[in-house]
């Protein structure tokens, strides 16, 4: 299965990182690499490389599941998601 990159911009509240990584794991992905660049007080950015644990996982769904967490500002992927889906959401 393909490695996918996610960049998550979030507000660095207590617990925010476990909240993000916990969700990614729970929704069926293995986290391969993590990078947490130094950023400003109110904004952090988490770069992760992930691999789905089975073929049925859709990165677009994961992206929206991360986006709805409180404190997440933006979720970017390097993979172009299905065009129609991107329009619908």
């Amino acid at each position, binding site marked *: 299965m393909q490695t996918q990159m996610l960049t998550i911009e979030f507000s660095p509240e*207590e*617990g925010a990182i*476990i*909240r993000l990584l*916990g*969700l990614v794991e*729970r929704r069926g992905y293995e986290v391969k690499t993590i990078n947490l660049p130094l950023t400003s007080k109110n904004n952090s950015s988490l770069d992760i490389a992930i691999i789905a644990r089975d073929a049925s996982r*859709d990165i*677009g*769904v994961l992206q*929206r*599941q991360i*986006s*709805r*967490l*409180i*404190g997440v500002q933006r979720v970017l992927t390097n993979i172009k998601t299905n065009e129609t*889906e991107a329009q*619908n*959401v």
Partner: protein
Amino acid sequence: MSASNPDQSEKERTATSSQTGAQLVVKALQDQGVDLVFGYPGGTIMPFYDALPGSSLRHILVRHEQAAAFAADAYARATGKAGVCIATSGPGATNLLTGIANAFLDSVPMIAITGQVPTAVMGTDAFQEIDIFGMAMPVVKHSFLIRKAEEIPYIIARAFQIATSGRPGPVLIDLPKDIAQMQVPAPAPAILHPAPTRQPAMADIADAIELLKTAKQPVLYIGGGVAKSGASKALRSMNEIAGIPAVATLTGLGVLPTGSENFFGMLGMHGSKAANILVQKSDVLLVCGARFDDRATGKLDSFAADARVIHLDCDPAEISKLRHVDVAVPGSLKAAIEQLKVQKLNIEPWRKQAKELRRQFAFDYHAPGSGVFAPAFLEKLSRRAPSNFVATCDVGQHQMWVAQHCSFNRPEAHLTSGGLGAMGYGIPAGIGAKLANPKDCVVTITGDGSVMMNIQELATIRRYGIGLKIVLFDNSALGLVRQWQELFYEQNFSEVDLYDNPDFASVARAFGIEAFTVSRREQVDGAIERLLKTNGPVLAHVRIDPRENVWPLVPPGKSNAEMMES
């Protein structure tokens, strides 16, 4: 109540120049309009309990924290406001967890406040220290660990805002003891209103209308989100014109009244055969506030395989999660339904076919023998109950019979643990629902297995004189598990026999609750009458045949087209 007189409470606030964190919590709850909380005290939450007397908050002392969470959950479902539950750290907090998970899976607004050990000893395995903030993360919409007492008003206001906005859910607030005891200058109260849900896009609505117009065999699929978005009325009006045959999930029951012309029952594993056939045959599925749960869809690949799907939901993350959607309408469900102005669809042959299926597969209430037939009991009970009837259920066969056989005229009339399927929900939920709307005729329907998971709450009912009616269907078994062992595990009955149950009527009486036992069919009318006319708490212990099963049924992993019948 101070909240009703802001000038005076403002004066009071400035008069007492400093307050403890716990006093701020009490005040903040009052500022949010909370009048009732469910909880249980203990070491680290003692500052809160110290600040409680003399406040306008009514505290209901449950006898197990799980019941506090379930009661708060039902209170929220019944009122639309966030329910509040409170527990101490460690075991108190972990006992809340099942109830928090229940609220999470059914999208119920809830605020759970837990005591925590003092910040200085957090992380040292202090007495009754448990990382509830970490443990609860997968089952909360959000959580806060309070580090500064002066942030309490804002955090509590924000917690209520998060719990009640968009797709509702539980929010945990972990409150270390030192923060609760700290004296701080009283900060200004904070009020945050629910954040408006994003409006649906006009273009999406137009696409939905276009697709609906082409439909020859459309089906409206109603989920729990409809009631949670306050969209029930809008949906009823919309469908009065459109006339689309409708089905509902377990938590969507009551949005369309049970007996109404366009309603064809529950879909899914224990749904009605008519509902499942209609969905399987549909060419357009209009899904409102539902999430394609496996108990509703059966084998996903074969679920409504020929249908194009329109999905209206306030949570974009639910769109195309399990089933590919042809037209997605993310955003406010209420607004979307209001704007979905569909003319009467030209689908008379389909409507006729639907009604024929409903007639053909209508439930049969004639059963052999002279024992009590639970489906018939429930059908009668809900028919004879007043229009403010509310059923709160436990989990098992009896729960499925309630969903199949009771009539509901509104979604708040049916409170059930849908996503989590948590045995033990019934009685605490009955307490929450009855306290929320004391005039309602609230009936808890439980089983001999489930009732034992929160039987201690009979003491709560007794203490507060809560006029809850309890129907306990006693089949001397963990019936639903027994049914699966019979059907899918070659009758290898393993650990499902409850032959040595206590005498439940005596148990209830020992708690000071009126109770009686019936076991014969001719006693049913009298039992229902007695239940309905008793004002105080009352328990009807109803013995039923252990061999009775829930029919029809979609076997696990099978398509909804393959329903087994008795």
